[in-house]
């Protein structure tokens, strides 16, 4: 099998950013999804939500201007833009649970073809469980985008017929952005929305072992 095109994590972040419309309210999950912020167009206003109580989150502060009271959900220092608003945790998660966010971008261990998401626990014995806001985010936006490599380091597909890892949310993912291609979750399973380079749907079917709907 020929080597498939894989785009970099930075390019993938830029690809996701290109799909986020001006005026959207967006939550970027901890880890790789936070990269998306770097590629949002500077001349458009997109309002970032961090679930620890801030809308209108800005970039990280300058050196020497770190404010320990002003952090994101990953507990990194951030800033607040003009037009920002602070609120408490119940209000913040009401915003999510109530469906007011337009987009959230999350990482994943597995996404099933019915939209189930597994991203909080590998279920490994002895591991200390921690869920944070993952389950709230999974059900907490109009569009739930997953940002992930298509394959694990061991070469297994993260797109699966059914998740083997513990679920984060049921039927909640709307689109999966991977290094190989972009997939929509439909009533008939994954649909190839866009392939990168010369990657073909047939190659993606081979990698994932799934029947994919065409572009």
């Amino acid at each position, binding site marked *: 099998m020929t080597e498939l095109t894989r785009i970099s994590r930075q390019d993938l972040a830029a690809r996701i950013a290109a799909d986020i419309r001006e005026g959207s309210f967006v939550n970027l999950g901890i880890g790789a999804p936070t990269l998306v912020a770097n590629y949002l167009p500077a001349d458009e206003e997109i309002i970032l939500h961090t679930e620890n109580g801030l809308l209108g989150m800005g970039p990280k502060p300058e050196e020497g201007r770190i404010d320990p009271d002003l952090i994101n959900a990953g507990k990194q220092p951030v800033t607040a833009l003009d037009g920002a608003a602070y609120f408490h945790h119940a209000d913040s998660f009401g915003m999510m649970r109530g469906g007011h966010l337009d987009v959230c971008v999350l990482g994943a261990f597995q996404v099933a073809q019915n939209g189930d998401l597994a991203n909080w626990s590998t279920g490994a014995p002895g591991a200390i*469980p921690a869920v944070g806001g993952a*389950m709230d985010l999974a*059900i907490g936006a109009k569009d739930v985008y997953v940002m992930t490599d298509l394959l694990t380091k061991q070469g297994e597909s993260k797109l699966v017929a059914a998740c083997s890892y513990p679920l984060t949310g049921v039927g909640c993912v709307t689109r999966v952005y991977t290094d190989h291609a972009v997939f929509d979750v439909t009533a008939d399973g994954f649909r190839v929305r866009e392939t990168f380079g010369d990657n073909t749907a047939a190659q993606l079917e081979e990698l994932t072992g799934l029947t994919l709907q065409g572009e």
Partner: protein
Amino acid sequence: MIDKSVASVTDAVAGIEDGSTVMIGGFGRAGQPVELIDALIATGAKDLTIVNNNAGNGDTGLAALLAAGQVTKIVCSFPRQSDSWVFDGLYRDGKIELELVPQGNLAERIRAAGAGIGAFFSPTGVGTQLAEGKETREIDGRTYALEYPIKADYALISAYRADRWGNLVYRETARNFGPIMATAAATTVVQVDAMAELGSIDPEHVVTPGIFVDRVVPVGERRWVKDGVFLGGVDIEGRSLADKEVAS
């Protein structure tokens, strides 16, 4: 005259008994009432159940309380962090019980306790391990799980300013769990940077009305703020950059 301020952090935490359930505000270090936690450690109260979003960072604050062996159970959403070694060790040794709650359910359950709601149907966690055994119901085409309030004997929180009636304002994302925990505890204890004159907090800006507050203790301004103005000059843990340069 109403005056909820108390003279010391020791007075502030007086009465917390063995076996109490204690909510502790903060998200990671932001808003964590470190001085009140230190005072709680000094009381030696044990068999505590702690409600917090996390399970301690580094060796100070909540982590120090755990290290002191005073906590039997913790209710939180995210115990495992890069610097949660104290909790990690206790958990692996079977010395602490963990109730893991998705963060939004944790917040809403605390709010429900304060607002007199008997239980509520939440969509969060449905179909996952964390909703196993919970009553579920389909309402208007969506499946929900029934969640119960979380209340406490004491809440220890950190705010920015308080007046003597106990009205509170917070600072930035240090607000987090403070306003809801204040409503959900029989006794709410607040540490603030400084007291404010009654009438100096605009009634439009009060975040926690004094009705939810029992005791307030001023502990001095945060290291990165002077007279209410942000100074910078610290790292994310609040340590002075100047000190750090000297140390390194």
